[in-house]
């Protein structure tokens, strides 16, 4: 699954989730959904706003993790 990993970038920028949510104009609840991996999809506009706010590339915040039930043995 694809996860949105913001922890490291937020630390680097010394920014809190609340501040990021305010900058990119989404609710804290939605940012929490995004960070927890519950989100089903991310809009390009949201990704664009996050990258602008954290001054990074999409690849810096999007991580691929193998699902436990999708591992072929």
């Amino acid at each position, binding site marked *: 699954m694809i996860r949105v990993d913001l922890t490291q970038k937020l630390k680097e920028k010394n920014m809190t989730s609340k501040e990021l949510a305010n900058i990119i104009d989404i609710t804290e609840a939605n940012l929490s959904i995004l960070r927890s991996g519950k989100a089903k999809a991310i*809009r390009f506009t949201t990704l664009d706003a996050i990258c602008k706010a954290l001054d990074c590339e999409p690849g810096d915040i999007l991580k691929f993790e193998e699902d436990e039930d999708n591992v072929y043995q």
Partner: protein
Amino acid sequence: MPFLVALMVMIAVAIGIFVGYAIHISKKDNYESTLKILTVIVKVGMLVAILSQVVLTIISLIATTSDVIIVLAVLKQVITTTFLILIYNNVIKLMNNLAKKEIFITRNSYYVKGIGLLFLYLALTEIIVGLIVGVIMFRSYGNFTITFSSDSSVFVYIIVGLAMQIIAKILKMACKIYEENQLTI
């Protein structure tokens, strides 16, 4: 007897106005007012249906002569009334959720599916009872006729039941799409 005829005509006119009004407000686009009026209509309509089943039970008790047929008629009316009460219960739960604007939730699809299944059970009851009555009549009088119902309501039950199953499937799919949409940030 003229009083009974007048009463039947009045009931028919009232139901006609009732259905006409339901069609009229269904064509309106205002969600809240339409839902509010439809809820009242459904509640009253279902209560009338349940009460009519109770009255039919009493009439069937008085009118029928054969012992086995009395038991069957009463049993059928009890089952039908029970199913109607369960349908009423599901409809009220569904209407309450719709009033709270909780439309695309999986629970609603289960309610619709439940209503559909209950209509199919009603049809099954009519068929089984009709078949048993037919066999009894054949053994008594040598004349086999399957009597589902005087107004062929069994076919209405089947069509409504199947339509509800389709709506439930569509609603379930809509819930999935809605959830994905809600979880798209």
